[in-house]
Each structure stands twice: as structure tokens, then as C-alpha cells.
């Protein structure tokens, strides 16, 4: 049993609400109408395309194609993280790519092998949606972590340098910024884990129930995905901060300003 299909015309009906949104946004002079239209259009086109190529990915289900697809997803995520954090892409792409790849790949394969226990570890049906959820969430928290770290450091560079002058190592002087950025980055997921089921019914669970799964199965998958997201976010933000620090400072322990866009 699958979810009841949606007719294209019925789907189009939902776009009618854009009219009052655009009207209100115009009245309030939010200067957002172009962005609203552009984002809505991109979302619709991108998801339609995903629908098309997922159909073929699922049909061929080749390990190398699925793996390559995931690498592309991670590359786009890394690019978006750096662009949104206003950091130089050419210098930090490698560290951020690795920081997302390592935890995502580890957690993803662990879930497939030991939790869901599927025979074919690279099965597109499991690998791609789970990876997408892990990645989307890691992307958000890496943006929070990295921008918090580098903007905090830029604002209080004198304090950082003073700590170095007092005798601290680079890592000792960076510790307060590092701690504050990790806390800021993982606080949203911790809050979300603490209220899930009471305040919100998560998307994956809703999707599975609509798709015909019984609630207990949907809940088990939701627990799997929440833990997966949490672990991935935690390790990914720690790694991206640590690996970017190697690139971010010169031999005099001074922040490389050219990294900040």
C-alpha cells in the first residue's frame, strides 16, 4: 500500500497561496517577492528533477553510481556551507568536504549494515534518502558552527592574540571560540530531540505513515534517523572546525584574513 497519489492540478492548487503571501510581503515592503518566486520555482524544478533521476537510480541501483551521487551531494553541501558562512571556498573546500564525508559515510554504512541490516549496503532506496537527511542537517549545523567560530574570532581577534601573547598555544587560545561554536551548532538538534513527538511530528515518520508503514516501524526509523543526524552533526562540526583551523592560521598563529569573504 502506498500513499494516495496527488493529481498535478491538485498540486498546482497549493501554489494559489503564493498570491496572498506575495501581496502581504509587498504591502510590508519586505523586498522578498523576487526571492520568494525564485525559491519556489527552484524547489519545484529541483524536486521534479530528483523525482525523475531517482526513478533511474533506483532502477539501475549500481553501487558506484549511488556512491558517486552521494559524493556530488556532499560536494554541493560543502560549497553551500562555505558560501553561507562567508568563507573562501577555494581554501576550505577540502577540509569541509572531508568533515562531512567521514561522519556521513560512517553513520550511513553503519545504519545500513547493523541497524536496518540490508544485504546490499549501497541500495539506493535506503542510501540516498537517509544520506539526504543526514546531509541536509549537517549542512545547517556546519553553517552555524563555522560562521559562529570565524565571526567570533574576527570580532575579538585582540583577545585571541592577547591570550597567545600570555603564553597560550593556538588551540588553548581558540578553545573558548571552539566550545561556543560547537554548542551553538548542536543546540538546535538537542532541542529538537527533546521535543520531538510532543511539539513536532517529524517528516520522515509522517512520510512513512503516509506511505503505508505501521506507526511502530515509522517510529523506529525515526529514532534511527534522529540519532544518525545527531552523531553526524556532532562529529561533522567538530571536524570542520578542527580541519579548517589548520588552514585558517599562519605560522605566527594569526588568523588568515583572506579566508573571510
Amino acid at each position, binding site marked *: 500500500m502506498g500513499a494516495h497519489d496527488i493529481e498535478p492540478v491538485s498540486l498546482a492548487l497549493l501554489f494559489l497561496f503564493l498570491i496572498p503571501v506575495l501581496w502581504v510581503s509587498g504591502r510590508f515592503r519586505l523586498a522578498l517577492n523576487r526571492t520568494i518566486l525564485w525559491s519556489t520555482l527552484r524547489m519545484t524544478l529541483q524536486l521534479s528533477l530528483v523525482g525523475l533521476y531517482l526513478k533511474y537510480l533506483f532502477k539501475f541501483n549500481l553501487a558506484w553510481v549511488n556512491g558517486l551521487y552521494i559524493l556530488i551531494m556532499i560536494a554541493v553541501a560543502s560549497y553551500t556551507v562555505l558560501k553561507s558562512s562567508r568563507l573562501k571556498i577555494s581554501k576550505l573546500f577540502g577540509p569541509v568536504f572531508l568533515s562531512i564525508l567521514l561522519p556521513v559515510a560512517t553513520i550511513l554504512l553503519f545504519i545500513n549494515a547493523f541497524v536496518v541490516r540490508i544485504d546490499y549496503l549501497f541500495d539506493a532506496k535506503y542510501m540516498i534518502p537517509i544520506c539526504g537527511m543526514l546531509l541536509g542537517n549537517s549542512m545547517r549545523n556546519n553553517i552555524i558552527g563555522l560562521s559562529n567560530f570565524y565571526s567570533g574570532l574576527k570580532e*575579538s581577534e585582540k583577545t585571541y*592574540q592577547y591570550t597567545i601573547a600570555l603564553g597560550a*598555544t593556538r588551540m588553548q587560545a581558540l578553545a573558548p571560540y571552539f566550545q561556543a561554536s560547537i554548542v551553538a551548532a548542536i543546540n538546535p538538534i538537542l532541542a529538537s530531540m527533546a521535543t520531538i513527538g510532543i511539539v513536532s511530528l517529524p517528516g520522515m515518520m509522517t512520510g512513512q505513515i503516509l506511505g503505508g508503514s505501521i506507526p511502530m516501524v515509522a517510529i523506529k526509523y525515526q529514532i534511527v534517523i534522529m540519532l544518525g543526524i545527531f552523531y553526524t552533526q556532532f562529529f561533522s562540526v567538530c571536524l570542520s572546525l578542527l580541519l579548517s583551523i589548520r588552514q585558517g592560521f599562519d605560522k605566527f598563529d594569526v588568523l588568515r584574513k583572506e579566508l573571510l569573504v
Partner: protein
Amino acid sequence: MIRYDDIHLDYAGKNIFSGFSLEVSENEKLLISGPSGCGKTSLFKILLGFTRISSGRVLYNDREVNARTIRAVRRNLFYLSQDIDFRNAPVNAVLDEVFSYEPNRGLVPMPAHREHLMKMLDLGDDILRQDMQKLSGGERQRLGLLVCFLLNRPVWLLDEPTSSLDKKLRRKVVDYVMATGKTVLIVSHDDIWRKADNLKIVRWS
């Protein structure tokens, strides 16, 4: 002991100074005077390796200050910045942290010595429990001087060290600094320094 050798400094495409040379001997006390914004503080930051010069070289004990030597050089310098940029945390925690850094281990002050210096600087015990951010400019400055005197490094770089102190305390600080066997570089607009004996004055034009 410290030598600035024909150094040039540019910042944001603008030349701040060029062809500056200066030699400071061991135990010398030197006041650098000149108009605001001419780059006096930069001299300290260059020696500390936080500001990079466009040309020239800086030597500490005849060794060039560069990426390889900077950490060894820094352990000999105490920098009292104008705003005393300690990180924000309770004063006690910041002091403990400073003495936990590798170059400062083994320098944990004897309580009697610390009390003596705190008394001289008019600092009560209650200040130790306060947050750094809540201290007044004068309190921060006195705390900065306390750390300077406790760490007792060979070279002191003091940027406006008496700007927030009252007259009595300024006198005490000047006397203490002038009596130490340290090498001291001072940037200050405070005339009280000029009255001190044995102070070499470098006028920056």
C-alpha cells in the same frame, strides 16, 4: 637585545611608516613618544608577530623574529595592551588559566608576593570573583599590571600603562617599573614618565 632594522609597514595599501630603526639594550627603559595613529603600538605587535612588516627585519637577542623563532621570542615578552584584552571569565579563572600555560608553569606566585603586589595596585580580594567584563578600565589596567609583575618576563611592552590610574597609583607604577631590572618599552602620552630618571625617550616624527 631588541633591534628594529630599517622596517617598513603598510596597512590596507597605505604606508604607515618606513625606514624605522631602533635598538634597545638589556635593562633599558625606553619611552616611545609621538602623535596618535603613527604606528607606535604596531612596533609592539610586530615584535609579537601579530603584524607583518613589508620589509626590514626585527631581531631579539641577535636572532631574527620569524615563524620559526616567534614562539620562543613571545615567552620572553609581556604585552600590556591598551584595552587589556583578557578574555571574559571570572578574574580568578583567567589568572589560573594564565599560569596553566606551558611557558608560565612553575611561575605560580607565592600568596604573600601576590598579596603584596595586589595591595600596591589597590586591588582587593573581591575583584578575583568578578567577571572580567564588569571591571572598570582602571581595574583592568591594574590587573594587567599585576599579571605583568607576576609573570616577570624579561621584556615588558607597555601600551599606555597608566592611562586609567589615579595620580598616586601612577607614581607607584612608574617607580616600580623604573626600578625593575627588566627591559621596558613604553608607549604613553602621560607626562609622568618623562620625569623619571634613566628613561630614554625616542621621539617619533
